[in-house]
């Protein structure tokens, strides 16, 4: 029997599913992005008009900027806090397992629920945050957090960061577990302080988990949809209107399938380019340290 050949047949069912529900839709998306298809009949070929519109109207350029701002804030802050907790917990074995699980708990919740709960925390009507500010004597800091264009985006990033700090922390702790114990021992015997050990030994050796955390958080945030959708719907005054929100409103409200497809192709290209460059840079950095 030609056993060598037929082992590849095992991949066929999975490949079929991937082709029909992944490759084919992407090609369809690309094709539709050059039309004004509205879901019925056949769309007219409009060439690059959809793309021209995206890159010439400030509405869409703003959405891209807001998406990047959201991603940047979350990636930086979430990973710094995650790294802080992992570094602390690595030194505190007694509370490590409990804390790792406790911090991870919000990541088990759905975006929809996290969005609703935080929306109410930020609410100007009997919301938890303003009430807390009053109770500690900081009345002057009260504001409608999600209704104020200058704070709305930050308020949403805070909810996202809260949700995924435990995820970053768990990955960093796994990175810590991969640091050989003899290196740790040696530096300790050399009298390096906790801070010195972190800077010179642990941080460089954590490079692979830094790469993973940054890449995962970037992919996760550039496509962010549920939190702004639930918490603000893109408002106030478009301050939280991300690219994904723009895609959904064009789909559902207006049935602009062609234009929505062009937006999603732009999103795909942005994510692929950013993640590829990032991966390249971070992997190089790993090899040089």
């Amino acid at each position, binding site marked *: 029997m030609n056993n060598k050949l037929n082992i590849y047949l095992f991949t066929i069912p999975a490949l079929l599913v991937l082709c029909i529900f992944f490759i084919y839709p992407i090609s369809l998306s690309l094709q539709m992005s050059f039309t004004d298809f509205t879901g019925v009949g056949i769309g007219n070929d409009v060439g690059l008009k959809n793309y021209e519109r995206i890159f010439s109207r400030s509405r869409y350029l703003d959405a891209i900027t807001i998406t990047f701002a959201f991603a940047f804030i979350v990636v930086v802050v979430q990973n710094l806090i995650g790294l802080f907790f992992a570094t602390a917990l690595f030194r505190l074995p007694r509370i490590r397992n409990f804390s790792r699980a406790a911090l991870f708990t919000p990541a088990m919740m759905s975006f929809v629920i996290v969005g609703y709960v935080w929306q109410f925390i930020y609410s100007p009507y009997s*919301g938890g945050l303003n009430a807390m500010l009053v109770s500690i004597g900081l009345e002057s800091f009260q504001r409608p957090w999600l209704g104020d264009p200058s704070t709305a985006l930050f308020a949403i990033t805070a909810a996202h960061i809260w949700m995924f700090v435990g995820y970053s922390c768990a990955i960093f702790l796994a990175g810590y577990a991969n640091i050989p114990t003899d290196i740790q021992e040696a530096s300790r015997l050399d009298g390096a302080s906790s801070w010195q050990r972190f800077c010179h030994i642990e941080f460089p050796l954590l490079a692979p988990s830094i790469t993973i955390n940054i890449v995962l958080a970037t992919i996760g945030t550039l496509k962010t949809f549920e939190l702004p959708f639930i918490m603000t719907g893109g408002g106030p005054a478009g301050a939280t209107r991300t690219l994904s929100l723009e895609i959904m409103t064009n789909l559902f409200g207006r049935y602009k399938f062609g234009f929505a497809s062009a937006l999603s192709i732009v999103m795909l290209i942005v994510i692929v380019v950013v993640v590829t460059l990032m991966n390249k840079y971070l992997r190089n950095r790993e090899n040089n340290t």
Partner: protein
Amino acid sequence: MSISMNKSSSGSPKGNGMKFTGKTVFSASANVFVLFLVIAMLIPVAYMIMMSFRTGSEIAQDPLGFPTSLYFGNYINAMDKMNYFRSVVNSLGITLSVTALVSLLGSMAAYPLARRTNGFSKAVIMLVSLGLATPNFVNITPIYIIFRDLGLLDSYVGIIIVFTALNLPLSIFFYTGFISSVPKELEEAARLDNCSNWQIYWHVIRPLLGSATATLSLFVMLMVWNDFIYPLLLLTDESKFTVMISVYRFVGNRSIEPDMLFPAAVLGSLPLLILFGFFQRRILSGVTAGAVK
């Protein structure tokens, strides 16, 4: 943070003793401090649970107050209006079907990928990683149209197919890693007995995959339970809603009523939080196993 060990062991016994007490005191306060921060991170979860037992007017009067009694009226109302049990059954049924499909298709595809390294397997792995990184948004428009034309909108079959396709890349990765760590000797013995590849997969490899399948099913569950976009896109018939869509339809988007929002939020997340309580090790190791490579 904790204090480092003393440089050498040459200090006097008394000196060492003092260092020792100094270290434990400092370390205890570090434990308390970090534990305090960790618990502070859980405040929103506690807030959600506390508020779910209070009436709307109680919350309006005293936004941070503790519940004075265990008032279940909110829950009874929410369960009833959300059609909670129906949507839980829907989510569980979809999870089971997707897990079955994804574990069969994924482990089958993973078997050759784990055992042969060549151009073909590299190309498949490339395709799979692309599938993992591609955002849903690239596919939702065409998938909506394809499903509409196939008559799969508003059907269990449609939503099961979508979740299967979404989870398949993860499952292929998972099983490829797992099968690579299975020793080849078992297979070689079977091969000497003239077993076909299919017999080897079915009788030698597949029975070993239980633990990987268990972890995978937790991730499928997490996704089916929590995903919002595809059910929102594909389901309009209330009797087929998954839990998150029920929560969304119940709480709504305009004026948020706390006595509806909080019980719905607890009902929507409690089952997964309990699941996490039981399987936290498996879930956390699954999260980090995929990541640290």
